[in-house]
């Protein structure tokens, strides 16, 4: 840290800017690739917003002006008032470059930004925001900025208001303080007579107190403006029995005996104006009584000199900035570590006094080349092995960081200590590195989608159907491993859509549909996952037939009442295949249950929604990476386990009366008017044989891929954490009920639960164990 705290903060600011601009670019590129997730947009907004906030404090006006326009557009996007489309993203990327240049210029590490270039982009952003550039941009931007910048010195009274403790019921005319001698105030508009003071009637609403505002403090503030006398009307106070402690009953009348500006009086009530009834009346000299001043505030500077000279002098930002700039300038002149303002980057040959002209030419030519290169995406080819080594190292980094955090936490250091604070920053940074590294492995799904037109042609020929394949979102990126494993389920589902979904040309014609059927394959990002949709405009699911087949195979009982969606999703059950005659195409004994299982093995979900006569949509959603998982760390039978966060609906401590035993054996929990089976995790995982005390633990309500709910009974919930997934199969062997393993902050290995298997075996086991007990 430098000796001058202000300089040190400024250095921090530029360092932070670098990180923020990096974030901004990463997120804009994500937007460009089709990830229009609200969190991505928010992250962009926050980055620009933080740059602007800091820049404002240092008086970096050019930077603020540009960031302000940028931020305004980002705000439109995040509020959804403006859609994120290709044009917008391209403008944002250009704006991000200019913002970068502004920061570099402000730091003194680069040339000033060409005003025309900056202004052109401001106009471009404003056109996107408002539909047209804001006329007279410069003047307007400055006006706009007043809101944020308008530093008007605050009037502070040096009168120490001595009677502070007696405030609530004070009556202070006796103090007889002279009115402050204030120069030419913008007096409120009053007719006749000279104004001598104010009468204020103030009735707080309960909300005022709920937000931790205090009448006494407001009176103290008024007291700083001049001598006041206060009357309290407690006639609204009910009897003690009828008293509602959170209600507000008192009304205050304050006489302020000083002809201060109305704005100053209103300013005291600034924080509470919507949480109280307030009337402010001016008091006339002739005793003409009070006249209510209109509510509209005079649009004038309050123009008061700052009386609090001590603090003001010490904190005069403008002076500090001037000082800082002078300092920078002198360092620049002295040719310190900072690069001179308008010099092109030196090539290694440049410092030589008699540099050959060729080298000099190279140096100057390099700059524009680098500038143009920045606009086109530059790529390098890297061996996959190197990337994977990096990913492994980052995984270890995440674990190490968590271990460090845990040690520090255990050492009893306060969460607000410098070390904890640094660790929090480190955690954010580590996550960022992890995200960036994962992004290296990301690939567009194009490689898989490209293979599909041929498949569709083949299947169409085999089935004698006319099919048009429409694809969308080929550029959507996802981890390489996921891309590779997408091919099989997509192939299967496309076959299925053409074979079972689409009608024959004759049937289509009879139904009044175009002879050619359409199958659409689309990829998109949604809430941190990739979603693949396969839709067709065929006949949709024949629910009656699905239902009767399911009953035939004993998958449902005839008396079960199922919603349309539930019926549709029956096709994913093992042992279900609707193909009455086995066809060459999709009826190879591979049912939709296999598709579902292969998607689940990638941590994904699949569902169908069907509209009879109109078609079906299969939706599968998969995690973007198979390397990390957001999990809930829980304890059961002295073991530490991780439950995937995506499966958890909520957690609760069950009340004894909510737990019932069905048939005296199966424990179920009454959860939101519904009985869910309880699975004792410690027992099901065979960590112990005895069932746990049902009433002592914590229950996590989970939902399986099939939409089935269950309550997992654990001893304790330790908290939410992102964990690095380590394969158990690779390092040991497959274990029933365990999806993978991870290493926790304290260095221990924790198993990641396979919720679906756990819920199903858990129910069987709990039942059989109970039966065993009954029998013995």
């Amino acid at each position, binding site marked *: 840290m430098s000796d001058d705290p202000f300089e040190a903060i400024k250095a921090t600011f530029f360092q932070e800017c670098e990180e923020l601009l990096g974030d901004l670019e990463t997120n804009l590129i994500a937007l460009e690739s089709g990830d229009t997730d609200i969190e991505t947009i928010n992250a962009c907004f926050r980055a620009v917003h933080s740059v602007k906030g800091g820049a404002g404090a240092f008086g970096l006006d050019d930077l603020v002006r540009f960031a302000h326009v940028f931020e305004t557009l980002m705000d439109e996007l995040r509020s959804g008032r403006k859609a994120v489309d290709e044009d917008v993203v391209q403008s944002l990327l250009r704006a991000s470059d200019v913002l970068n240049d502004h920061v570099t210029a402000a730091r003194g590490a680069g040339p000033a930004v060409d005003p025309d270039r900056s202004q052109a982009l401001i106009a471009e952003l404003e056109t996107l925001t408002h539909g047209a550039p804001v006329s007279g941009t410069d003047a307007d931007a400055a006006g706009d900025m007043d809101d944020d910048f308008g530093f008007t010195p605050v009037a502070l009274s040096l009168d120490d208001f001595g009677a502070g403790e007696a405030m609530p019921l004070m009556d202070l005319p006796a103090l007889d303080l002279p009115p402050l001698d204030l120069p030419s105030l913008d007096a409120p508009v009053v007719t006749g007579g000279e104004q001598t003071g104010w009468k204020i009637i103030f009735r707080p609403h309960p909300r005022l107190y709920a937000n931790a505002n205090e009448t006494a403090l407001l009176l103290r503030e008024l007291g700083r403006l001049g001598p006041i006398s206060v009357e309290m009307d407690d006639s609204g106070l009910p009897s003690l029995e009828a008293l509602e402690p959170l209600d507000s009953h008192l009304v205050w009348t304050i006489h302020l005996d000083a002809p201060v500006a109305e704005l100053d009086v209103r300013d005291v009530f600034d924080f509470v104006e919507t949480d109280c009834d307030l009337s402010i009346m001016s008091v006339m000299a002739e005793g003409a009584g009070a006249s209510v001043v209109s509510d509209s505030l005079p649009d004038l500077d309050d123009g008061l000199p700052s009386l609090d000279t001590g603090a003001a002098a010490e904190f005069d930002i403008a002076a500090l900035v001037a000082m800082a700039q002078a300092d920078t300038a002198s360092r620049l002149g002295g040719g310190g570590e900072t690069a001179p303002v308008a010099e092109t980057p030196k090539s290694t040959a440049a410092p030589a006094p008699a540099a050959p002209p060729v080298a000099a030419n190279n140096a100057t030519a390099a700059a524009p080349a680098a500038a143009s290169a920045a606009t086109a995406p530059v790529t390098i080819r890297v061996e996959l092995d190197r990337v994977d080594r990096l990913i492994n190292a980052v995984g270890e980094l995440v674990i190490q960081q968590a271990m460090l955090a845990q040690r520090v936490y255990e050492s009893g250091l*306060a969460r607000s200590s410098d070390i904890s604070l640094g660790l929090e920053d480190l955690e954010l940074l580590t996550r960022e590195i992890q995200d960036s590294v994962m992004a290296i492995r990301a690939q567009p799904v194009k490689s898989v989608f490209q293979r599909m037109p041929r498949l569709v042609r083949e299947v169409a020929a085999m089935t004698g159907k006319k099919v048009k394949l429409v694809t969308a979102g080929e550029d959507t990126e996802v981890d390489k491993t996921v891309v590779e494993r997408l091919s099989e389920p997509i192939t299967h589902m496309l076959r299925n859509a053409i074979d079972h979904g689409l009608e024959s040309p004759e049937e289509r014609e009879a139904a009044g549909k175009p002879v050619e059927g359409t199958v659409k394959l689309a990829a998109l990002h949604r809430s941190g996952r990739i979603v693949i949709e396969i839709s067709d405009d065929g006949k949709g699911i024949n629910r009656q037939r699905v239902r009767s087949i399911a009953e035939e195979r004993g998958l449902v009982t005839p008396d079960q009442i199922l919603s349309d969606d539930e019926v549709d999703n029956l096709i994913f059950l093992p042992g279900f295949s609707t193909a009455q005659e086995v066809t060459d195409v999709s009826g190879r004994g591979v049912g939709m249950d296999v598709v579902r299982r292969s998607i689940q093995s990638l941590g994904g979900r699949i569902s169908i929604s069907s509209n009879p006569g109109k078609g079906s949509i299969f939706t599968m959603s998969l995690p973007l990476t198979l390397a990390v998982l957001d999990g809930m760390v829980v304890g059961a039978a002295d073991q530490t386990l991780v439950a995937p966060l995506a499966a958890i609906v909520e957690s609760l401590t069950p009340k004894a009366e909510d737990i019932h035993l069905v048939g005296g054996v199966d424990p179920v929990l009454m959860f939101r008017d519904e009985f869910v089976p309880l699975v004792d995790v410690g027992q099901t995982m065979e960590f112990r044989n005895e069932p746990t005390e049902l009433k002592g633990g914590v229950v996590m309500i989970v939902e399986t891929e099939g939409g089935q709910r269950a309550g997992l009974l654990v001893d304790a919930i330790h908290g939410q954490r992102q964990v690095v997934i380590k394969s158990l199969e690779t390092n040991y062997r497959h274990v029933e009920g365990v999806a993978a393993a991870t290493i926790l902050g304290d260095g221990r290995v924790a198993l990641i639960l396979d919720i679906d298997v756990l819920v199903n075996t858990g129910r069987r086991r709990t039942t059989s164990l109970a039966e065993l007990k009954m029998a013995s």
Partner: protein
Amino acid sequence: MTKTVLTVDDSRTMRDMLMLALKDAGYNVVQAVDGVHGLEVLAEERPDIVITDINMPRMDGFGFIEGMRADPAYSGVPVLVLTTESDAAKKQRARDAGATGWIVKPFDPVRLVDAVRRVAA
């Protein structure tokens, strides 16, 4: 007795500036990097006054204030919202969440300290 102010902001620059201004005005300062961390520090340090940013990752200022007001232990702790967004809707949302007042960024230290003093008993 020295009062403790908790500042919640994801920007290091802002945290440092607040620290500088508040320390100079005689306050003890503790910090948090976002709403989630803020709630943790709140429980640990029991500050007398809280200043929070609105736009933060993980949990924003509104969520933080709501979380804080949901606990009766902090119902009387004044919260000032620190934001460049000075529009009425933002202020209203902050008020709805339970904010006591606000400070418009970029703040000048005098105004900051004045606002803190105004809500501090």
